[in-house]
């Protein structure tokens, strides 16, 4: 025990403490910015869908409804917290936390600009897959612990869907890993950097167009968005796995889902749209600007699809995943690997 204490107060440990403080600072910045974005994303979504359907969207709270997110958050905070009778209380309580945890830890490896990621690790892509599979536990546990038929069916659907599409998604990114020769998200983004007028010529969306398509579809399914939002199909399952959740616990699921969308959009941007690369000099504010603009574009695609496409049937969803997307992704791996060797 004495040796342990000595290690803790030795001169070198001061650097470690500084380092840990630095990492904490990064975490606070990233989490607060993302939480702000998550508060604004539903407003953006309602506005986009509203205008696509020739409506105005939220207009009442503040100018053009800009304060709507604050009103929604206040409402959720003060709502009564209802816990179903005969539910498994402990699991009911921790399920939304697990979902949030899975989504938020993924934020750690995303490079926002050239040298800024909370954790610049060598297995960035694998880390995100691992954490998104952890998030699936929150969903399936919520469905089971609620002790309700709708929740249970929603939870089962969600977990089957997430497991199936994770395979397609993982395989679609293998092509990108082959081209860049790395699993590190910063290195993948750096490999696509370009200069001048044709700054986008190195983006992997061109050589990896099949993979980009497969990734985009599996991204929608992974985050339970339309047209693959079977787990929360309101006409069949009320609200799916979070039917029994109310108030703040519900908002944890809600926030977790939007963070997961952000993470998936960020992966799409980093792996196919060049990450922080863009026209103009390679300085930090511009890099961040390009990254955020691309992120907003992919988020807009999410909303666009939601306003346009009807929901698939569950068996169709599984057929698309296993019989179309996975073979396509495998084909893409074979083509990319062959071209790379030649």
């Amino acid at each position, binding site marked *: 025990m004495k040796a342990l204490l000595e290690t803790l107060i030795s001169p070198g440990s001061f650097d470690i403490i500084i380092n840990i403080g630095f990492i904490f600072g990064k975490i606070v910045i990233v989490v607060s910015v993302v939480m702000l974005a998550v508060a604004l994303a539903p407003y953006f979504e309602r506005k986009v869908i509203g205008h696509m359907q020739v409506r105005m969207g939220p207009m009442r709270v503040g100018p053009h409804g800009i304060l709507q997110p604050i009103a929604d958050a206040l409402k959720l905070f003060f709502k009564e917290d209802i816990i179903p009778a005969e539910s498994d209380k402990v*699991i009911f309580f921790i399920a939304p936390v697990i979902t949030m945890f899975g989504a938020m830890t993924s934020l750690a490896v995303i490079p926002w600009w050239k040298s800024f990621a909370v954790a610049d690790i*060598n297995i960035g892509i694998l880390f995100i897959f691992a954490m998104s599979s952890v998030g699936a536990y929150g969903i399936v546990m919520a469905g089971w612990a609620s002790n309700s038929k709708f929740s249970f069916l929603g939870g*089962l659907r969600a*977990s089957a869907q997430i*497991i199936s599409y994770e395979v397609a998604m993982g395989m679609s990114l293998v092509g990108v890993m082959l081209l860049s020769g790395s699993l590190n998200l910063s290195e993948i983004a750096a490999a696509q950097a370009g200069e001048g007028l044709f700054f986008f010529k190195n983006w992997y969306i061109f050589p990896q167009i099949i993979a980009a398509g497969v990734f985009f579809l599996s991204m929608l399914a992974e985050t339970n968005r339309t047209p693959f939002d079977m787990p929360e199909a309101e006409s069949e399952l009320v609200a799916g796995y979070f039917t029994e959740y109310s108030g703040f616990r519900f908002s944890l699921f809600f926030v977790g889902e939007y963070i997961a969308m952000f993470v998936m959009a960020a992966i799409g941007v980093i792996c196919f749209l060049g990450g922080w690369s863009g026209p103009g000099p390679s300085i930090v504010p511009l890099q961040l600007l390009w990254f955020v603009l691309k992120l907003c574009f992919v988020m807009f695609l999410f909303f666009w699809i939601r306003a346009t496409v009807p929901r698939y049937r569950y068996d169709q969803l599984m057929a698309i995943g296993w019989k179309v997307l996975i073979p396509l992704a495998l084909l893409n791996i074979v083509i990319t690997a062959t071209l790379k060797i030649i």
Partner: protein
Amino acid sequence: MITLPVFFFLYHALVIVGLSLVTVSRRNPVHSVLFMLIIFFHIASLYLFLNAEFIAAIQIIVYAGAILVLFLFVVFLLDLRAEEHADKYSMSQPAGAVLALSLFAVLASTMRGFVLGPHGIYGIEKITEMTHTKAIGTVLYTKYLFPFEVASVVLLVAIVGAITLAKRHTKS
């Protein structure tokens, strides 16, 4: 002599052993599965401690992300209410205890025979330089290519077998 690495290892070892006991002693199988999830995370953390980042990620993706979810599906098919009122231990519990304890004794007696093996070429410096994923890939596809391919053929046989069994049921 408790240095930081030893402390780290002790924590993980104790948690893994303790949670394993908790896992097998729960009445509710869903709780068992959740405790197993925590164990998997600690095992992944141990791999990270050994600079084996690729294996740590695969540990979570494959075991926590796929196999344990399969366990959950199977558990959901059980009648949990009947399960909770059933006897915690089956009739053969004394025999099982004797067997387990004697196995533990045998294993513990061989502990003294442990000899630290020689260090391979993949030390920490080399792993950090070429990244763990690349190191594993290189070894797997050169030195151990044949066993690797044999393993994949065995897995293929299992897949084909499972599909054949499922198909036979749908036809009849």
